[in-house]
């Protein structure tokens, strides 16, 4: 098996080619923040939070494969500043009021503010007002809390196979939809498996009946499923 050497934050690491910077970093105890990445799903580099510096270029660690003699810096001042700005833009774009959210205390976006040292949002808030879709008997989606990570789209396509969720429109109008943009309760392809609920990092897709701060997700079930399916 071919072995290559990658330098991450000044440390020489021996690994095999074809793996992502994110995988190699994690294996070696190096923390890179992520949001749209989820073990068990394909990587798409959507959120840009995992950007790292490769010889002065900023690339997403989740989609960039290591190469021999690659030099990666995961936490330069520039990288940290950009990550904070990306996070501020995510907060400003939605209606991320944690106070009464059912995912308060169990939200990856909320945790990122703590990890990245986001004291305030320095860009104007958009204050969007999407209609909450609670038409499904067991679940609902509050699009104001969606960060467009696409985990729901990927888990529904790659793991459940129903392909109920997808993206629609572009730019600031981009949103996730069910089937051909019908209410979730009318989306015939949905199997009600609930995987999208488990993988959604915020309080956007949640279970009905969960009240203030009660919604707790289990995104790790996806990696577990993938592992068990490998063995037939």
């Amino acid at each position: 098996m071919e072995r290559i050497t990658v330098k991450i934050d000044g440390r020489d690491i021996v690994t095999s080619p074809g793996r992502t910077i994110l995988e190699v970093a994690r294996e070696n105890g190096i923390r890179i923040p992520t949001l749209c990445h989820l073990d068990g799903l394909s990587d798409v580099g959507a959120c840009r939070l995992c950007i790292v510096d490769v010889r002065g270029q900023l690339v997403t660690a989740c989609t960039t494969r290591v190469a021999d003699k690659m030099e990666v810096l995961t936490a330069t001042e520039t990288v940290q500043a950009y990550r904070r700005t990306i996070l501020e833009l995510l907060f400003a774009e939605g209606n991320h009021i944690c106070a009464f959210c059912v995912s308060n205390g169990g939200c990856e976006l909320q945790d990122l503010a703590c990890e990245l040292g986001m004291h305030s949002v320095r860009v104007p808030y958009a204050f969007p007002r999407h209609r909450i879709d609670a038409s499904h008997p067991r679940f609902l989606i509050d699009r104001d809390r969606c960060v467009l990570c696409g985990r729901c789209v990927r888990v529904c396509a790659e793991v459940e196979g129903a392909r109920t969720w997808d993206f629609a429109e572009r730019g600031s109008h981009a949103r996730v939809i069910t089937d051909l943009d019908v209410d979730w309760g009318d989306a015939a392809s949905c199997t009600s498996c609930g995987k999208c609920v488990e993988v959604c990092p915020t309080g956007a897709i949640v279970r009905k009946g969960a009240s203030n701060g009660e919604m707790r997700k289990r995104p790790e079930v996806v990696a577990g499923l993938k592992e068990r399916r490998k063995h037939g």
Partner: protein
Amino acid sequence: MERQIHIEPVTRIEGHAKITVFLDASGDVRDAQFHVTELRGFEQFCVGRTLWEMPGLTARICGICPISHILASAKTCDAILAVQIPETAVLLRRLMNLGQIVQSHALSFFYLSAPDFLLGWDSDPATRNVIGLVAADPGLARKGIRLRAYGQEILARLGGKRIHPGWAVPGGVNQALSAPDRTWMVESLPEAISTTQEALALFKAKFGSKDDRTVLTEFPSMYMGLVRPDGAWEHYAGVLRLVDAKGKVVVAAHDPSRYFEILHEASEPWTYLKFPYYVPKGYPDGMYRVGPLGRVNACDRFATPLAQAELEEFRDRSGGRSGRVFDYHYARLIEILGSLEEIGELLADERITSPEIRAEAGVNAREGVGVHEAPRGTLIHHYWVDRNGIIEKANLIVSTGHNNLAMNRAVREIAKAYIKKGKVTEGMLNRIEGGIRAYDPCLSCSVHAVGHMPLVVDVVNAEGAVETTLARE
């Protein structure tokens, strides 16, 4: 020449308000208005949110009494789920409500109002506040702080945090009472009771006579509160009762969920706070008072012995039902005592630590009403939902709002009693504010909004030119 006196803002209350006093040509008071100056719009922006968010969302109406809203909201959601919640959940919610009453009443008495009657109505404004009280009587201040802390700790130990705990949910509550927490509450109770009795003794020593307690005017009104079916003081369940100024029953036992049959609201162009009134008497004659004085006058008795003894003494000292605004403070202390006694009873109930605390259900009714007694008065939440659990409409009548007509009356009467021939002192203005403080208004709640402005008094003439300025620095 017509003049106006502006008191802006009213301080040592919750929320934002100002007062205008209108003088006639000879400098005597013609009228006064109590303006609540901010609006957030909860009834409007709740529309489109989900049922399950409502307890946490409406909690943010108020940071002093979030529990009140959380419980009223949870009761409303129970009705929409069409469930009967487990009996331990009822006991726990009652315990939570009593902890709330204790801390909120202690805040009002020690932190907000006591500076006036313990340091003096005319004392230096720079020190007439809780910090000044700490300096003047650190022993009493410490006791007051610890009494409030006792109530707050009940909330934190039951709900996870003191302010805006996400604990009461549609169908019950989501966390049981642990044995260690129960023990703490039991062991800390005697100190709380002792502090309250000390405060009552101090109060009665200073203000035992009726005349002492008329400092902030008196006037007759109806009184409203929930009572138990047997007429005893109640805070969580029960029936709605209205009595007249002498305590004679006007409405014996109205179903709280049908509050709209006897209560409507009016509005005025000069305040963001609406005016609930008793429908058969119309607006504005249908004035009534809620909160400590309202409940204490509306009920027959307390079901607990210490509070009942104090109630009897209060009625004795007052010659029957009191209409004195200052007696809100007296009633408030009696309610702390009654609440602490019931806390003791609940903690002794074996069912209080049971893990059976939640009923599960979906949306089974399209409308629900939840009513109980917040520290400041009867609190009503009323939601309409679609079949998916999305709020279509919300109506909230919040405690202090019921007192709006009475607060305006108090301000007018106190101003009339003190301001003559255009002569105004800072102490008089403080007494006018004191009339509001006695009601312990929660204006954020009442308007579902909050506003704030500083206090400067401009005495302006009819042309609008400022003749004198009294600024409180």
